[in-house]
């Protein structure tokens, strides 16, 4: 490895290299360049997003751990919910099966490294054109990867999103969230501290896989005269399951000081981040790392992204007990270094290869003084151009409804969920199709944990600020619609190249919007990741913030799902219908592009609406709850009917707004409820509550037993569809098997 090549592969700019030389007052070694390249990357260092992330709300009454650890933590009673979402977009675009599988593996390790048993996975997936061969190939591979990996580890995949939108054609988004549960006093931090403590490596051996991507690895390997080989990381879920059990046992028995998984930039990032948190100097003997291949260099050891590896800080007196646990699970292990100083203001990382020092760097600048990039904000012109809606043609409203129900963005995801073991651990309280998220019981208590992910690239493209707010609002609305209170969020920031004005503007505004919604909804940010440079041939993806929210309900027996319960029940809407068709799935489908004005969102109204629905559920005043989102009111009511398995609905709407928008517009802050028809006392309180939260309640129809979905506007029938037709459309499988 020459210096020039190391510069090239580091991804560092000329200015950044100069900065490093100034800082060190010498030229960095090849290995040091690798270390800087890794830690100053967007993935580890957030150099493009940190200035905005700093402004996000990260504290609150439920927050135990904000950003900065392996994952965020919120708490209730004696329990800690540990959660995080991460992207694996680029690996999944190259090799969908392994890319998705290793994405699952990575996020799982973040959760159990903190001492939490992973109890649920949620996947937020976005693909390109519905009809392209490539999309089908990617969908098949990604779902198989998630299925094979998650099922083997025994963590249920309980909810998620599956979105098809042309802009993701070359660049699919695979965002995976994991939620874990621990006792508050059982949380383990990722720190290296205590002079003389050992740095203990366990899990799989280290190979040359994942060395900065395919191009780099093959070039590198051929230059060394070795066989070319695929450099995609390969997951091994069996080993993952073993390191999961071993890690939980180590933490439970209090045998370790700190634990971190080796994710991006492997040994480098895990050891440096742990040492930086502990403000302690660490020394690594890189030759001690268990190697899968011969003649690996320090550079390769430092930057390998071999999967299923962990690093722990261990007191010397505990070492034998630690090894006993690791041996029980028949895992490779080695002491690869030590904490070499007490807590200090100037911690360093020192790496030796065959006794020779190859890395000797101050940690502070490496981890904390990442160069940050704040660029000029230039409002892209397209934002004005997209407002005008072109003429478009639609079939009959009934046909539109059936087409939307069978659109893979809306249709039942049963064909996906049935490939995931969503029942394992026996905590999931309703099948995944029944809600905008999932509700899990906490065994031995009455508490339930609600989980949801949401994001909308269409809205964020049309209005980045509102789109950012909306992602938080809907993720939290899904939580509230199950009856739980949102406690916190995690997010994946999926954007194009931040060095270009348009994606940069989108990113800054969307993150601002997200922050505002988090503040108002009292759902602080506990972490997440940024995936930038999502472009194909210079065209960025739709800007997409994916928000993963978690919430808690006091009594899970009260949790609410969307299927209608009883014929004769009244149906009402909370919120207001507006003339907003822009950005809707309907318009995107029939106008052929993402266009129009983004639906407005008044975040104060949203806050009151969510408080109201939680109160209604807690007081058991409603039989079903469904938020109105993709496909609008007509689709929402159809989903309630379809998921009831047997009941229909009859609506008569009175609004004076264009019919397309009334039926299929995606105006925010609206929820459909059903409630008993002849319980006047109940209805009186229900109405009072709506008044006290200042949310309009409109009675719009009733649940029927005649297996039909009938929607009238001012008495005129616009849609009259049989339930069987609706069910058939809704059960359309994107991939038949």
């Amino acid at each position, binding site marked *: 490895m020459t210096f020039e090549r190391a510069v090239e592969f580091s991804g560092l700019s000329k200015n950044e290299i100069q900065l490093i030389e100034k800082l060190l007052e010498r030229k960095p070694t090849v290995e040091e360049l690798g270390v800087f390249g890794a830690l100053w990357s967007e993935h580890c260092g957030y150099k493009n997003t940190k200035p905005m992330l700093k402004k996000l709300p990260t504290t609150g009454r439920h927050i135990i751990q904000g950003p900065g650890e392996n994952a965020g933590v919120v708490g209730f009673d004696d329990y800690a919910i540990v959660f995080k979402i991460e992207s694996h977009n680029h690996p999944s675009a190259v090799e969908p099966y392994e890319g998705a599988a290793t994405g699952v593996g990575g996020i799982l390790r973040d959760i159990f490294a903190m001492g939490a048993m992973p109890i649920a996975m949620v996947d937020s997936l976005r693909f390109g054109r519905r009809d392209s061969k490539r999309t089908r190939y990617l969908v098949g591979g990604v779902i198989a990867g998630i299925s094979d990996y998650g099922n083997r580890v*025994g963590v249920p995949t309980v909810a998620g999103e599956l979105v098809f939108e042309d802009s993701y054609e070359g660049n699919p988004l695979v965002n995976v969230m994991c939620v874990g549960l621990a006792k508050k006093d059982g949380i383990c931090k990722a720190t290296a501290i205590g002079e003389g403590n050992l740095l203990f490596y366990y899990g799989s051996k280290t190979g040359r896989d994942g060395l900065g991507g395919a191009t780099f690895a093959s070039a590198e390997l051929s230059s060394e005269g070795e066989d070319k080989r695929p450099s995609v990381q390969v997951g091994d879920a069996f080993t993952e399951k073993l390191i999961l059990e071993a890690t939980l046992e180590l933490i439970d028995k209090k045998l370790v000081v700190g634990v971190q998984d080796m994710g991006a930039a492997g040994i480098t990032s895990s050891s440096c981040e742990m040492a930086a948190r502990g403000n302690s100097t660490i020394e690594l003997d890189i030759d001690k790392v268990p190697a899968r291949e011969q003649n690996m260099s320090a550079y390769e050891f430092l930057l390998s992204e071999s999967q299923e590896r962990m690093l722990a800080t261990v007191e010397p007196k505990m070492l034998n007990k630690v090894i006993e646990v690791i041996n029980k699970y028949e895992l490779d292990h080695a002491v690869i270094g030590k904490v070499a100083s007490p807590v200090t203001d100037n911690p360093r990382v020192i790496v030796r290869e065959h006794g020779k020092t190859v890395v000797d760097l101050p940690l502070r600048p490496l981890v904390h003084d990442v160069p940050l990039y704040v660029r000029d904000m230039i409002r892209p012109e397209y934002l004005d151009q997209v407002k005008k809606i072109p003429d478009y043609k639609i079939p009959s409203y009934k046909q539109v409804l059936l087409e939307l129900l069978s659109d893979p963005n809306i249709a039942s995801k049963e064909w996906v969920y049935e490939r995931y*073991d969503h029942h*394992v651990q026996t905590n999931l309280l309703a099948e995944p199709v029944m809600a905008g998220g999932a509700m899990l019981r906490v065994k031995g208590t009455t508490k339930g944990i609600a989980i949801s992910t949401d994001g909308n690239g269409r809205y964020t493209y049309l209005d980045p600020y509102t789109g950012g707010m909306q992602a938080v609002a809907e993720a939290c609305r899904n939580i509230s619609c199950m009856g739980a209170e949102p406690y916190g969020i995690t997010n994946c920031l999926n954007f194009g190249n931040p060095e270009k004005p348009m994606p940069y503007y989108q990113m800054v505004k969307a993150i601002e919007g997200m922050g505002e919604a988090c503040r108002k909804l009292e759902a602080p940010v506990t972490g997440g990741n940024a995936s930038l440079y999502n472009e194909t041939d210079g065209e960025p993806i739709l800007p997409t913030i994916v928000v993963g929210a978690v919430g808690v309900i006091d009594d899970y027996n009260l949790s609410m799902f969307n299927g209608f319960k009883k014929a004769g029940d009244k149906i009402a809407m909370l919120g207001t219908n507006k003339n907003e068709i822009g950005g809707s799935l309907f318009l995107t489908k029939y106008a052929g592009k993402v266009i129009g004005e983004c639906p407005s969102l008044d975040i104060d109204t949203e806050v009151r609406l969510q408080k109201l629905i939680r109160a209604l559920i807690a007081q058991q005043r409603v039989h079903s709850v469904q938020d109105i989102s993709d496909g609008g009111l007509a689709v929402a009511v159809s989903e309630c009917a379809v998921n009831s398995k047997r009941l229909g609905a009859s609506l008569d709407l009175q609004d004076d707004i264009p019919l397309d928008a009334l039926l299929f517009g995606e105006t925010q802050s609206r929820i459909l409820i059903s409630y008993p028809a002849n319980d006047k006392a109940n209805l009186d309180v229900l109405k009072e509550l709506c008044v006290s939260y200042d949310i309009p309640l409109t009675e719009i129809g009733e649940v029927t037993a005649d297996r039909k979905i009938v929607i009238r506007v001012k008495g005129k029938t616009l849609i009259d569809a049989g339930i069987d037709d609706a069910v058939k459309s809704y059960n359309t499988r994107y991939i038949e098997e």
Partner: protein
Amino acid sequence: MPKLKFGVIVFPGTNCDRDAFWVIEEVLYKDVRYVWHTESDIDDLDVVIIPGGFSYGDHLRAGAIARFSPVMKSVVKHADSGKPVLGICNGFQVLAEAGMIRGAFLRNKIVHFLCRHQHLKVVTADSPFTAKYHKGQIVRIPIAHAEGNFFLEGDDMKYALDHDLIAFQYCDAGGNVDDTTNPNGASLSIAGIFNDKKNVLGMMPHPERASETEMGSVDGRGLFESIAEWVG
């Protein structure tokens, strides 16, 4: 009366052990302990459960490596002495690989993992595992597997039929047993089968996932209650 004790076998890669443990302890209110695969002394146990998961990562074949585990010798002894053994999902595969029941496994006919609620027909109530059901009863117990295509033929098939060894068959809500209601292609839609002495049951569906109202079905509870009553 001595207290009834269950053991839940844990191989590396087993992942339904905690669920089975939970049902025995919190639903059945019986004593239960985990048995790590290297243990060989299980004389304290009255009932052995081999739970689902991916023992040894399902390397080679599902259940193929687990059968060589030290604990399996003791499980065979336990069964030979007439005590009950229940193998669920991967546990069923382990039983088949160990030769503790007749038959073998193939990949699902649809070749991918399938997790869903499943109707089953109780073929016989004449066993320690199904006494609490009645013959012909339709129950709903979830499945979750990629290799549930249980294969039985010739003399084994004849023996199983002649001796009432089939415990459950896949069916629909109306009790129809045919190719369209068979999720994995198993011979005769077999979802669960006994050994010749009927003290060993292997089944693909997960009764531990259908033993509490929270899980949407309590139809699996009868199985655990049947065992407890028979042994106790």
